[in-house]
Each structure stands twice: as structure tokens, then as C-alpha cells.
């Protein structure tokens, strides 16, 4: 959620029970302002919170002029002092996918993972146990990246693509109507489009190039990962769950989840200019940061899909 409309976004996202205590709220409002100045961000989004056993991570993201450009991610333990995180690489993701369990809340904490490495020397095969040290900071980076890719969501029309390429916030966007808000096709993944390139020309024919330049949630596989839920307050909230156990035939089981409440993402009616930022970060809004389950989901999600 946009740092500037943080309080409103928090209120809208409160239905999941996750919120910020008053002192956190106040300090975020202050410190994010400074972050914006120091890092010269166009917008600062409060991404959310990852609960740890010892401490909690508060995450913020800075956007440049082009909304879709790579974002810079910062974290803080006390909501005042922010540190920049490196961008996620595939190597990081692969490396941290073996880590299970909760975050500690200490970025320098090192997880130990023993791997069995096979080395061939001539005809003999040696098996060695290699202990891999994984820093929690690395894990934090990769988890944030995966959450972003999986459940960062904006409503259709919130951003528009200019003919020159950059993506801007659509200031005329007033939210979705109810009938649209109820449809998954009205929401886009807020990330570089992946599936869009695979579409045929025929499928693309109806798309508006300035609005439909992102992947729609509608075609996510497997289905049912994201549920829309209307709240009395007028906010449509989204719930994303990552479902595992697809391989168990005939058995319905659900795995861990990450909840994605895009207060802005889905907020229709309450037109706030910056709701869309709220949207994208709303996904990661405090609610979504039920820490451990989500991380577990991440670590196991990939393998599950491969099968």
C-alpha cells in the first residue's frame, strides 16, 4: 500500500486481523517519507510484514517513474532504519528453496542445510555431506520476490502503458464496478507479463494495449488459487492460496497459503488516487505476512508444480 495512504489501506485490509500497532504506524509514516526522499523514489509502497520468531521484518518497496520497472526493496526491523535488499536472482531462489520453517527475525541468521553431493572419481562414487549456509537475508529476498510474482495484483485500469513503454499510474481510475470487481479477469499480476506473450493473436485481439499489458489472474494455473471475497465495507478482498498436493489423486488437500488482500487492489467505490499502489503492495499488506506458512508454501510450491 502506498505509504501516503497507509492508514486508509490498513483500515481496509484489517479484515484479516493483521494490522499495525499505533507506534508502528506512526513511525512508518515518518520513516517512509524519509526513505522516499533519500532514495529518490517516485512512490514508496509499504509492502508488509514478515513475522519472525525473534523480530519482525517490515518491508517497503520503492518505485521509479516506470511502475513496472524493477523495484527496490527495503527492510526494517524497527520501522525506522531501513536497509536495502539486493535484487533477487534465480540462484538465490533455488538456494533458499530448501529452507523450511520460520523466519527468525535476524537477517544475519544462517540456516544450515546439509546436502548430499555425489562426486565421481573414476568409477567410484563418493557421497559427501555438504553443509550449506544460507543467510536469512537471502531467504528474505527470494521470498519477497516470489510473493510478489505470485500474488502482487492490481485491478485492471489502474495502470496504463504509454506508447513509449513506461507504465504510469492511471489517475482517472476510480475503481472497479461491482460486476467487474467480482471477476478474476479484472485483476492483473503486477509483474512483468509472462503468459501474455504466449497468447495467440486472436486472443489478443480484444485487448486494449494500453490497459491489458499484464497477465490476467483469470488464466492462472491451477485454478482457485485466488479467491475474491466481498466485504461489507465495500472492499473486495482477495485471498490467494497456494495449493499443494495436486499430485495426490482424488484427495483434496490444501497446503499452506498466503493471503493476499489487496485493499486497494480491489477496492472499488472508495476511489483513492493511489489505491493502485495500495493494490500492488496491498497484496503484501500486513495481512499477507503471516510469515511462516507462506514461506513454507514458497519453498515447496515449485517442486509441487513440477510434478
Amino acid at each position: 500500500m502506498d505509504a501516503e495512504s497507509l492508514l486508509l489501506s490498513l483500515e481496509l485490509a484489517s479484515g484479516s486481523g493483521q494490522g499495525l500497532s499505533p507506534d508502528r504506524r506512526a513511525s512508518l509514516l515518518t520513516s517512509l517519507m524519509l526513505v522516499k526522499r533519500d532514495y529518490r523514489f517516485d512512490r514508496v509502497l509499504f509492502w508488509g510484514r514478515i513475522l519472525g520468531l525473534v523480530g519482525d521484518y517490515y518491508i517497503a518497496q520503492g518505485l521509479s517513474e516506470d511502475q513496472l520497472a524493477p523495484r527496490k526493496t527495503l527492510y526494517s526491523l524497527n520501522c525506522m532504519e531501513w536497509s536495502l535488499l539486493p535484487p533477487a536472482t534465480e540462484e538465490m531462489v533455488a538456494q533458499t528453496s530448501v529452507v523450511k520453517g520460520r523466519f527468525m527475525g535476524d537477517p544475519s541468521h544462517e540456516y544450515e542445510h546439509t546436502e548430499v553431493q555425489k562426486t565421481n572419481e573414476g568409477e567410484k562414487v563418493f557421497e559427501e555431506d555438504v553443509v550449506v549456509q544460507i543467510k536469512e537475508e537471502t531467504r528474505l529476498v527470494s521470498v519477497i520476490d516470489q510473493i510478489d510474482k505470485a500474488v502482487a495484483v492490481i485491478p485492471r485500469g489502474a495502470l496504463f502503458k504509454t506508447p513509449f513503454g513506461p507504465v504510469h499510474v492511471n489517475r482517472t481510475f476510480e475503481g472497479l464496478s461491482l460486476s467487474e470487481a467480482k471477476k478474476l479477469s479484472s485483476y492483473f499480476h503486477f509483474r512483468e507479463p509472462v503468459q501474455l506473450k504466449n497468447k495467440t493473436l486472436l486472443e489478443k485481439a480484444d485487448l486494449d494495449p494500453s490497459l491489458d499489458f499484464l497477465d490476467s489472474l483469470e488464466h492462472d494455473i491451477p485454478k482457485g488459487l485466488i479467491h475474491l471475497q466481498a466485504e461489507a465495507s465495500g472492499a473486495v478482498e482477495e485471498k490467494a492460496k497456494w495449493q499443494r498436493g495436486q499430485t495426490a489423486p482424488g484427495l483434496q488437500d490444501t497446503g499452506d497459503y498466503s493471503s493476499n488482500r489487496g485493499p486497494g487492489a480491489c477496492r472499488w467505490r472508495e476511489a483513492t488516487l493511489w489505491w493502485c499502489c495500495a493494490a500492488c503492495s496491498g497484496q503484501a499488506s500486513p495481512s499477507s505476512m503471516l510469515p511462516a506458512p507462506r514461506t513454507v508454501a514458497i519453498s515447496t510450491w515449485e517442486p509441487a508444480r513440477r510434478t
Partner: protein
Amino acid sequence: MEDLTSSKQEKANQDPGEAERPWEEVAAFSQGPESGLSEPLELEQGPDTGPKRRGSPPQSPESRASTPLDDLAGPGTSSPPSLPQEGSYTPSPPALARQDLAAPWQSDKTTSVNPEAGTPQDHHLEQSDKGEPTASQTCQSEGITFRQSQQTKHHLYGPEDVNHNNSKQKELRFNVFQEEDSNSNHDLDRAEPGASEVAPSMLEIAIQSAKAYLLKTSSKSGLNLYDHLSDMLTKVLDERPEDAVDIIESISQDVKMEHFRKKLDTLQNENEMLPTYEIAEKQRALFLQGNLEGADQELEDEIAENALPNVMESAFYFEQAGVGLGTDETYRIFLALKQLTDTHPIQRCRFWGKILGLEMNYIVAEVEFREGEDEENVEEEEVTEERDDADSEADEDDEDELPRNFYKTPQAIPKEENRTGANKYVYFVCNEPGRPWVKLPSVTPGQIVTARKIKKFFTGRLDTPIISYPPFPGNESNYLRAQIARISAGTHVSPLGFYQFGEEEGEEEEEVEGRRDSFEENPDFEGIQVIDLVESLSNWVHHVQHILSQGRCNWFNPIQKSEEEEEEEDEEKEEEKGEETDYIEQEVGPPLLTPISEDLEIQNIPPWTTRLSSNLIPQYAIAVLRSNLWPGAYAFSNGKKFENFYIGWGHKYSPDNYTPPALPPVCQEYPSGSEITEMDDPTVEEEQAFRAAQEAVVFPTEENEETEDDEEEEDDYDQE
């Protein structure tokens, strides 16, 4: 011109119908004349009424049919049998009406009938012969000759029909009125049946010409005075204004204005009915309930105040902790809880928490009924259970004929009584504040045991079936109740010393079961320093009983019971049973009010995390306890007060992915004996050895005597 004539013909065909309109009206064929009469209009109205016109051709034969003197009429009279048909011929009400008419006429004045009935026929002829001239004449209105006048007279009714069409639902009253008016004409006609063509009276002619004049269409507006007047009168009679005569001018104006008003279209945009409206409507009742109580408010308050928790206060503390619903939602829940305590005999009520679902969420209220109030429900439930048992027994009887199943379902462990163990409290849930509260069924040990093995998302609909392996006994409401029981047992904690064991009951129970399961508030509790609460988990204790792996809080010995039952039956069986089932060691859970520091770790993850709500102002901060085992379970304490709260998906945390247990081996309950097991095929050596052995048995007796036979036999054997 041809169009004209044809329509003219139709008009003429209808004339008889019109002539009988008075009767029609009497016979309440209110629609009939309109539809029938509308046809002449078509001349003037154009294609709009086209479809109706189609109805007219059948009318002509009918009209013929209704004329007994077809012979006179000549052409087109070939269908007398249609008279009976007409009865069933509903689409052309005029015809029906005609029929009605025809009957009286025929009976009353036989002489007159013929000519009278012949009239339409004549028209027919007329139309066929000189349809064109008449048509043109009538169209140009005022008839001079009688024939013309008659035509016009019939024509006269056309415009009336316009009225009928335009103001479709005019009251019968007016129609009658109108009819009376027109009746006069017809009466005249009838007065001199068939003579209308011969000698019309002057009066009639005058009337007709006057009417024709009134019907003259204005070249400017396309209206005519006759319609206008009748419209006006209709309006006056419909609305019955006071002093109509004074406002007749404005009525006249209104009537004219109506022609310019847009007709109401049946296709209208439906207003979007947001679900939020519905909820707002329901929640409105919550806000109004305080006002409605009225006189006996004081009495109710005495009870309700005790029961109703101060949700807002707890919400305030939880907000310090960074959890909790927004103030707005909390307040609505507060109101909903008030509604619950007002409408049920509730001793104590607590906002338990919120369970998130995929489609809707559950708001859960934990409730303790006043003594003796909930017993009725209990009995009902027991009855249903008994029925279930009976059913299952019946099923078993049926199955006796099938292969015997040796699998014995382990004896179901009875559920705990209300007010004890896992069923200590009753839980009510609703999806949103304002929606009705639904009482959850009490939980059975089986449900808890199965719920521990599965992991499902809640949908928000209580009747959703839980499809899982192992199969869950019940639907989502049972699953929800089981999860609530588990979460309560795992995460409801209080500061050490807040509760103490009840002295009287405690002793008794200790004797019986060696455990205490009741406690009461400690009146001497002085509070614990917040810092102490944060720093040491041993200052927190569980105040909800641990649920054993059996699914009950108080251990139930299944063997003991089975023995008791079987003593009545057979001693032998009892012994067998005793041998079969090993002695089950009594499960013992941690006693009540055990410090949470003794809780088990989850794979090196501590089960609880404690925090101070604010590091900036620690003096006034509160202690916050977060469960790592049940993400979403929180407790706070400011030293003296405490509260537990759960908001989450109702899933227990596990570092590993959930995997359903493997399916058991198939048909384990059928012992595999020799008669079932497939045998290996004998090898060649074995066959030969077998043959040798057989021969050895046969030969000693019949040695050498019948070797040849033997050989033959062997051959046979081989062949076989």
C-alpha cells in the same frame, strides 16, 4: 386500394361482433371486443396492429356460421358446422360473442333472426361486391346513404377500439357505459331486425351522423373528439377527482399530454443490487435493536451486561499488539454479540475470533449457557445419534449375506458431555455481523482425531461437505467446531494465578479421575508485571484442557466399557476380547493450568513468541503472546487483564508440507487363506513326479495285468 378493401372486409366481418358488444360486455368478454374491434383501427393505425389482423380471417367463416340463413347469404356460407367449433375457438372472442348473441336471437325471434343474422352476411356480400366504394366512402367518413351510414356506424366502433387499444386496461365500468351508448344504435338495429337496410329511423341516422362527426379525425393532431371525450371520462371515473367539472380543462389537457408521454417499456434496466445493500439492511437491525427494547430494558440489561464482553476494550489492547480487526468491524461484531446475548439464555459470552474462509469468513462467539437452559438441545442430539446407530446396525444385518467382514470398527469413543472437556463451551458462528448466529454442533472425539489428520480450507458455508482422507465424519460445521476445540485447547492461556482450581469440586474430581478440570477466577489475583510476562513463559498457563490423542479431554477407557457390556452377554467372548485388545495405557495430558513453558517445540521452533507491544514506551506497553503453533492465535495481558483471540485460517502450523496419509492395503479385513490364494502352476518336474506317484499307487494292485489299459489311461490322462 386493395388493402383498404380487404381491411374493409374485415371490418365488415367484425361488424356483427360489434353489434353484439353489449352482450359481450355482459358476458365479460372484456378483452374480446377490444381485440376484435381493434381491427377496424388498423385502417387508421397502420401496421402496428398487424398481427391482430391475422385473427380476423377466421372470423368471417364464423360469422357465416352464426347465420342460419346461409342460403340467403349465398357465397361464403358453406360452413355451418363451425358453430360448434366456435365454442372452442377462443382466439376470436368476437366470434364467441356472436355465438352468444346468436342463441338468444334465434330463440327469441325466429323471424327476425334470419335477417339479423344475415346482416353480417350481407356485409360480406356487400364487401365482396361493392367493398371498394363503401370502403372509400367510409374512410372519407360521413355516410349519406343508409348503407354508408351503416358502414360508418360499424366504423364508428373502430375509433372506440382505438381507445381500447390505447388505454388498454380501461375499466369495464366505462366500457359498459360506452356500450350503453352504442347499444342504442344496435338496439335500433335490432328493433327492426334486418330492416336496417330498409328503413333506418331518422333518429338513428342523426345519432350516427353525429357520432361520425365526433369521430372525425383532426387533420392537425390526428385525434378525434370522440376518443378524447371517452378518454377524459375514463380518466375522471378512474381518478374520481373532487369537483371534476372545475378542472375538466386541465384534465383535457392532461389527456392530450399523455399522448406525448413515453410509453412504459417492459424492458427496463434492473438496478444493480449490491450485496452490500443486503448486508447493510441486516446490520441496520443491529443498530436499531437498542431502541426497540423499550420498557423491560432494565431487566434484560441485568442479564445481558454480565454476558456481554467488552469487545472494544480487548480490541484496543489487541490493536496495540498489531492484530485485530478494524474498529468498525469490531464494533459491528460487538453489536452482533449483543444481539446474541439478548436472544439466547447466555451466562457468559466471549468473542472467540474469526476464521477466514475462501468465500466467507466465520465470526466465532464462545458461549456458556445458563444452567439448565441448553438441555433440550442435548436430548435432541442424543436422539439423532441413537438413530444413526440403529441405521448402521441395520446395514450390518443386510450385509450378513455377503462375504463375512471380520473388520470390527473400533468402538466409537463417546463424546464428552456438554460443559465438560472439549464441549465445555458452545460456539456460535456467523458469516458477517448482522447475519444470523448458527450454533455449532458439539464435537465428538472422532471428529477431533480426524481433524488432526486433515488440512482443509474453510469455505464459509457451514453445510459444505468435507471431502478428505481419512474421511471426516461430518460437514464443515463439524470440522469448524473441531478446529475451534483444538485451537482453544492449544492457545487459550492466561497469566499465572488469574485462575485457581475450584476448591470444592476440584477435590472431588481429583479423587475420581486424578485430574481437575474446573477452575475459577482467583479473587486475590494481584497481577503480574508485564515485563515478567514477556520474559518468562512460565507466567502463562493454559486454562483449557489438553485434548488427548483419543479426542477427549478426560480419558475414556474403551475396554472397560466393552467388558461391562459383554458381561451381560457371554463370559467367553469377554475373555477373547480381553485377550485381543491389549491393555490400553491411560492417556494423560498435561493438567489444567500448566505453564506454557512446558509446551512442546515444533521442530526446534518455540511454540510461543512473546513481545512487548511497544519498545518506545515500555512503561505502558502490554505483553503480547503469539502462538507459533497456531498462526493467528494471540493473547495479551496488561498484568491484570488478559484476553485470547484467534484470527486465521484454522490451520495448525507445520514446517513440512501436509501430506495425506497413505491409503491402507486393500481388503485387509479379509484373511487370505488357502482357498483364496492363487497357487503356482506346477513345473514339469512336479507334474512328472505327481504322475509317478499316482502310478505307484495304481500299479501295485493291478500290476502288469492291464498294462495296456494303463497306457491307454495314461494317454487319456495326458490328453486331458
